[in-house]
């Protein structure tokens, strides 16, 4: 099986995001090297910002935001309407938990915020969570710039 480094890193970043949704609690400081193996530190730091936000603030809010992003913006096969129906039914019956989700199960399901709140088990302000993640990313970027010899 052939792997180029960028594909491997992309897979690692997505796998990290998936593990954040399922809350397997991987330490972000230990993931930095792996996620930036292809030299794309910016991408790595964006994902790591989610990991740090999950540890610093309410983890369920960050997980809920990730669910929203993957459900709306990740490319999926267009004809899979049954996926959304089954997922929404499972959420309404409380038959599914965040720990069972994957990017594939979420992609193209276009979950509404109230469905995500039901899945997460609490309501939150998505804009505030987004701001927090971006603020942590800025912190990480500033730290890198101060550390660099330039």
């Amino acid at each position, binding site marked *: 099986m052939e792997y180029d480094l960028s594909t491997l890193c992309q897979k690692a970043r*997505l*796998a990290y995001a998936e593990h954040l949704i399922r809350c397997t609690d991987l330490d972000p400081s230990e993931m930095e090297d792996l996620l930036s193996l292809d030299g794309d530190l910016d991408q790595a730091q964006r994902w790591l910002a989610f990991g740090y936000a999950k540890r610093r603030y309410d983890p369920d809010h960050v997980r809920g935001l990730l669910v929203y992003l993957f459900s709306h913006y*990740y490319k999926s096969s267009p004809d899979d309407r049954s996926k959304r129906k089954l997922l929404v039914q499972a959420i309404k019956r409380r038959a599914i938990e965040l720990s069972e989700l994957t990017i594939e199960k979420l992609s193209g399901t276009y979950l509404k915020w109230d469905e995500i709140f039901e899945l997460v088990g609490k309501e939150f302000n998505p804009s505030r969570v987004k701001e927090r993640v971006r603020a942590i990313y800025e912190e990480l970027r500033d730290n890198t710039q101060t550390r660099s010899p330039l």
Partner: protein
Amino acid sequence: MKEHQSDSWFIELLKPLRDIAPGNVHPSRAILHAYLKGRLPDIWRVGDRPPDPDDWTLTEVSHHVLACQACGQQLTHMRRVEMEHAQVWTKSLARIPSAIRVHVALYALALIVLFGFNGMLLALFPPLTPSPCSPSSPQDTAGTYQRVDQRLKLEGVNKPVGLPGACPPAPTPQPWQRWWAPWIFIFWTPLLGLHALWGWKTGIGLGRRHRTAATTFARLTPAESRGLLLVPVLSHHGLGPVSL
């Protein structure tokens, strides 16, 4: 649209995975089924897959299906079949009138509680089995006869005296400890079923149809008459009259 623009920073992260060539290793149907049911191991593993074709993690299948059209179509088909099965069940359940469904559910619950209660009583007060009592040795028998003889002399023959070899009075088992106790509950179930049927026929139930009728009735009649008419219903359920 506005939200989409504000999310652009996040969308940049979600790059699709490169498509997998058809000749590659694919998860079996059993693995895909296990994936749908959430039965695959959730461990962190990134890089080359191990040689075992049945060793897939949740993330590996997720990523593979996102990048492999053939497996994606197979999974879509499996989801459709699952949804059709679910719809068949939902339709068959929907055909049963709601009043009967509620009654059956309530009485099944009551039956479980009663069996549980009976089981608890049996555990707390185990059934008593009286053992035949007999003198343990010939010396004891002789001694007992002597004592009885002495008591006969002292108390006179008119008083009742325990005979040798007779058992001491043993506590009798309580009604719930008898063998026929569970059968009462078994016979009780059809009665409850009949009650459910009666409730459905007469309109005294918790179903949607009956609830709507009761609400309409409450709107049309004054409070006194509502109170009077509710008396027989509440009495039937073992409750006293309630003034509204």
